[in-house]
């Protein structure tokens, strides 16, 4: 369903892949400056940004050795701009982690069990294409794991299910203002933990909270995953005849 939302981007990509030179030029002109600015803002040097983008354009149009063209992986599940930015960010993360590994190697007394330059920190070598999503999920999970189950439940009810703080207060027999304080404290702690986890994992990466949320929202992986959540149904529950009648009455009175 989401692929249809980005059908114009998908059609444009097809033209580029079919060898339309005008479309290819247009792709570069439209996205080069934005990708360059994004990479520099996230911590790439000017040279690194230029090199990474040059590689991306090269891979976009013709794949390396036996690999297909990078653009053929674009499935139209998010905006082309977001997809390109994510590809660039994944490559920047991979590059910086390789650099960090090489620095580690040059330190005296260095001993490392793995010889794989991609395997830095908690990430596997295969995570190059999902580096940013892995980092987002890792930092989020860490931050939420520091909250109590009670607080996470309250946050979920408020943010995922639009339950009001007043309703939460009734459930816990708390005053609404206590719920409000508890949730605000938790949000601030999660925010601080997420940013510090990112800083700990990739110290060079410049991300504000707003950047972090934006990347989460724009991530192609997120778009793929949102299709999954759209399909999910809540568990079926056994209802008595009386309960079903009550529900029907509520719905008909609303209409």
């Amino acid at each position: 369903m989401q692929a249809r939302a980005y059908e114009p981007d998908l059609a444009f990509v097809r033209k580029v892949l079919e060898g339309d030179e005008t479309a290819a030029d247009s792709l570069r002109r439209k996205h080069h400056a934005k990708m360059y600015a994004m990479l520099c803002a996230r911590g790439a040097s000017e040279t690194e940004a230029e090199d990474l983008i040059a590689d991306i354009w090269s891979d976009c149009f013709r794949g390396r050795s036996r690999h297909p063209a990078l653009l053929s992986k674009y499935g139209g599940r998010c905006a082309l701009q977001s997809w390109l930015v994510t590809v660039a960010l994944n490559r920047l993360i991979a590059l910086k982690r390789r650099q960090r590994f090489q620095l580690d190697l040059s330190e005296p007394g260095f001993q490392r069990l793995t010889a794989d330059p991609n395997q830095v920190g908690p990430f596997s070598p295969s995570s190059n294409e999902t580096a940013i999503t892995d980092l987002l999920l890792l930092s989020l999970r860490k931050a939420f794991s520091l909250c109590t189950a009670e607080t996470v439940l309250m946050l979920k009810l408020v943010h995922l299910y639009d339950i009001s703080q007043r309703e939460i207060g009734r459930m816990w027999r708390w005053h609404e203002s206590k719920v409000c304080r508890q949730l605000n404290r938790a949000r601030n702690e999660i925010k601080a933990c997420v940013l510090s986890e990112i800083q700990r994992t990739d110290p060079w990466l410049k991300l504000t909270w707003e950047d972090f949320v934006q990347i989460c929202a724009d991530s192609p992986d997120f778009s793929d995953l949102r299709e999954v959540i759209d399909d999910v149904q809540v568990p079926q529950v056994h209802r008595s005849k009386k309960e079903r009648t009550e529900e029907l009455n509520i719905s008909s009175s609303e209409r």
Partner: protein
Amino acid sequence: MVCAMADDFRILFELLESHTREVAGHGVPTIPHEVRQSLAKFAAGTCEQNERAELIRTLADRSDLVAVLAQEIRKLRKLSR
């Protein structure tokens, strides 16, 4: 500020939830009547503290049940109108 942050958290939860669900699969389990009754009690604020603590532990492991709890809360919302 609080509102902007609130929207942020919806995005973050959706990312986490959808990823967890992708791993867990698409099954739609049926929940026992007594679990649903406990959730209804929780929604109404009539649970004892230990009962609530037990339910919170269950809900932490079964995020699909949070949707059922939310349904119960919304039912009460409609009834109170």
